[in-house]
């Protein structure tokens, strides 16, 4: 991974994915809303085929936007991190969730029973990094002579497949649903909470380098090697091509209910990824760098200089920088827990065209997150719906979401976002939330 790629990863990863899906939760008539509540099934439909869907929720802390990164010169768009680095906080967090639903199927067996199955690929992660890290990578160490730079990020990245089967049962107006998800981990990278210190100090004397590390992480199939040769810090990545089945396995459960209290009022709630856990055994290693490494350059004995009897050979000396971090790789299996997510929603159908509702979302685990939204849905014609939502979340109290749904014939097409402004001006915002997908319902 080149330096620039690593920086892009830090700054732009919020272009990758999404998970908070309040707008989807407010549209239970869509088959893909089943991803937020296993009790959702399009009304009066017997067979549902879920076509690919894509969901992304990502954010960067602070006010950093893509416009801080992009520059356009001579018609060519460039990425320039100089301004972006200046806007960073001392500590910054990037989080993202991406869900790609490849295919799914639902079959209503009777008025009471329905079955479902599907596959999805998910990629979730959070990176908390100090400002010093991109500054060092982008500017080099010379501007920071005499300063101790903290460059150790806290990382949690997981990519896995979900193979799900589920069932739902109706009890009058109450429908409950459950889903068993077999998880196959593709790749993971998780820094050790107790060991995430990495400091670099450039001595003003003659720029001697001191690296003080107590940094460790677990990795499965992401990091294959460290190569710190030359002036950069190059990380060799394993293949990120998702494999459908791996030796990294786990189980998770989804539960939910959908209760039509009256003709106009509906409430629902769900728990997702409950007890979700993946045991990483494939290419699972523990990398640790611990110690203080001082690089003082070549040390020539004074007698060599005086006597002129030896060669001043810089070659073998500079090579020591190659192993300066001295990551020790130890094969070690590890496990990660999925964040448990909770949804609850309420809706009131004013008339055939207008429906109002409220949705709540909470995520527990290492990265907690919560959001509350109020929506208004308008269906001017039977096969089209447009909706808007005002929501507050941990980042902002002024999110306006939009939803576009077309249902011509057996098709369900939709685009939605919990924050519409971010979708249309992604370069002016530090966060992005979007979902799109299609289904066939019969």
């Amino acid at each position: 991974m080149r330096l620039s790629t690593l920086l892009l990863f830090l700054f732009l990863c919020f272009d990758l994915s999404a998970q908070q899906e309040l707008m989807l939760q407010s549209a239970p008539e869509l088959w893909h809303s089943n991803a937020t509540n296993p009790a959702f099934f399009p009304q009066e439909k017997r067979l549902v085929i879920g076509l690919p869907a894509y969901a992304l929720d990502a954010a960067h802390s602070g006010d950093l936007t893509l416009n801080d990164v992009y520059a356009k010169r001579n018609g060519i768009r460039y990425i320039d991190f100089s301004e972006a680095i200046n806007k960073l906080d001392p500590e910054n967090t990037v989080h993202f969730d991406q869900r790609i639903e490849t295919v799914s199927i639902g079959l209503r067996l009777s008025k009471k029973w329905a079955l479902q199955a599907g596959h999805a690929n998910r990629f979730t992660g959070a990176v908390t990094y100090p400002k010093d890290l991109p500054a060092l990578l982008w500017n080099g160490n010379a501007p920071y002579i005499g300063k101790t730079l903290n460059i150790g990020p806290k990382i949690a990245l997981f990519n896995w497949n979900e193979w799900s089967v589920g069932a739902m049962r109706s009890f009058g107006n109450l429908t409950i649903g459950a889903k068993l998800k077999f998880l196959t981990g593709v790749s993971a990278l998780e820094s050790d909470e107790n060991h995430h210190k990495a400091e670099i100090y450039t001595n003003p004397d003659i720029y001697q380098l001191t690296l003080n590390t107590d940094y460790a992480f677990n990795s499965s199939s992401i990091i294959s090697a460290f190569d710190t040769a030359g002036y950069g810090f190059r990380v060799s990545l394993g293949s990120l091509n998702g494999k459908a089945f791996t030796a990294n396995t786990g189980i998770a459960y989804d539960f939910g209910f959908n209760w039509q209290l009256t003709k106009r009022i509906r409430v629902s709630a769900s728990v997702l990824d409950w007890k979700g856990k993946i045991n990483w055994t494939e290419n699972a290693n523990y990398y640790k760098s611990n110690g203080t490494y001082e690089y003082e350059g070549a040390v020539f004995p004074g007698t060599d200089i005086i006597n002129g009897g030896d060669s001043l050979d810089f070659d073998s000396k500079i090579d020591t920088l190659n192993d300066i971090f001295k990551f020790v790789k130890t094969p070690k299996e590890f496990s990660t827990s999925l964040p448990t997510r909770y949804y609850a929603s309420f809706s009131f159908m004013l008339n055939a065209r207008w429906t109002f509702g409220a949705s709540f979302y909470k995520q527990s685990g290492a990265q907690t997150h919560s959001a509350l939204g109020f929506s208004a849905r308008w269906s001017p014609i039977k096969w089209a719906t447009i909706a808007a939502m005002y929501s507050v979340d941990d980042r902002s109290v002024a999110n306006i979401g939009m939803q576009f749904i077309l249902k011509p014939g057996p098709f369900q097409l939709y685009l939605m976002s919990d924050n519409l402004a971010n979708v249309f001006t992604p370069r002016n915002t530090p966060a992005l939330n979007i979902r799109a997908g299609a289904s066939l319902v019969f």
Partner: protein
Amino acid sequence: MRVKTVLVFVIAFFFFFCFFSACTREDLEQVEISDHTAEFAFPLFSTDLLMKDLMLNILNDTLSGDTLYINPDNSMTLIYTGDVAEKKATDIFNFLENGLVPIPDSVSTSPIQAPDGVTVTRADIKSGTITLIIYNNTPDTVSGIFEITQMSANGVIFKYPFTVPPTPSTVWISPPIDLSGNILLSGSNILEFKYYAYNKEGVRIEFPSINGGFAPVFVSFQNLTFSYLQGYWGYSSYPLTRDTIEIDLNQTNLDGNVKVKNPKVTMRISNSWGFPTRGKIKYLSFIGKDGTEYKLNSTIFVDDAVDFAFPDFTKDEVGQTKYTYLKMDETNSNIAEIFNAQPTRLVYEVEGISNANLDPNVIGFLTDSSTIKLSVGVELLLEGSADNFQTDQTLDLDFGTYSALDTTEIEAVEFKLVTENQTAISAAVQIFFLDENENKVDSLFVGGPQFIMNAAPVNAQGIVSGVTRKENFIPMTVARFERVRTTKKAVLQAAFTTADGGQIPVKLLATDQVVIKMGLKVKTRL
């Protein structure tokens, strides 16, 4: 109205879809990382130059016998020494080692074969033999005793019995007779030989002379060595040594002035000869770079001579060694003046004279281990001053990884040269970089040497009292860096000047050191 609503809705939907698609494609696929400049800083090298190592290097360049003496106060004394001249007594005073002594009569005398002016009164024989040779031209077998009156062992006079058959056509030769342990005592350098011969009737006879008057009896001495000689040593002169001492401190071919404070020439004589010996200085001069002779004059010499201490027989000092130290410094000689001319060598010649005063009452001795040794040294306490004293050193270079760098992305480099000087010497330095054919490719400094090191402060005694740090920033264009990093040799030229511009003498201590280190900043486009 209904159609219009649907139309607006569909347009909005596609607008939303298309905008997002276009935006994503542009943002993620048609961008490049902007060229920018990053600057990296690395340490290059450090080295620690000890004054002691530097001076040892100067010594090792030439004479193996030179030494650097670290004084208790860590000051250093350079000692240049000449070859040690050693004269054994037996090299000068050989006598009676081998010889054939005729004995014409039954009582005969023969002088001891001693060097001129030497009268031996006692000689202890360490080893050697004698052989008795007799020509018996009588018809009878003759028996008898051979005696050397002045030779005895444990108080018993040497006597040797013999029986000689008639030898009309040949001679009778005794087996070798071991004389070890015998002592010769003579008051007049004369040995007396006697034989008592009897015929078969018991009548004492003398062996008749051989035709022509030759003696019928001989004594042959073989390989006679002495462990002790005692007697009178008269006036005798002999060469002791002639040698040259190279003073390589002043033998560089470079410019500069070095002034050494209080240089000394020392002579050390160890003498176990048991009689008075005088050293006669036949030649003692320094030679300058241009061959000019500077005669070393000193008040310690009287008529260019000095008497060496010696073990005194009358004081029962046999076997002892006496030492004579002679020191010529600025208090008793013109050496300080000579050293201002930075001489390059000392040439000296010394002659030995025994009993120079011709004292007839002097009783002396020699043992088989008696020697006289003379060593001459030039001692330079490293305390002085230097003004633009230049030296150079050629070093092999290998920039290794740096030589393979892709410099097309490099915008500029800057070396940082740091000196931490704990010596009273400042230095101006230039480094020339040479290619494989030793052609000068470039230099570290543009426009000549630069002072990279300031002298450390010194106290009133000229001793360093602190450390002076100097930082030198040396920017270099990429084109020059491109040339330099591929070079294979470097010639380091340094010109040293002591504190206060070389005006005051400073003392160099063995613990004095200079730390030289270098770092590198590289501005590179990423």
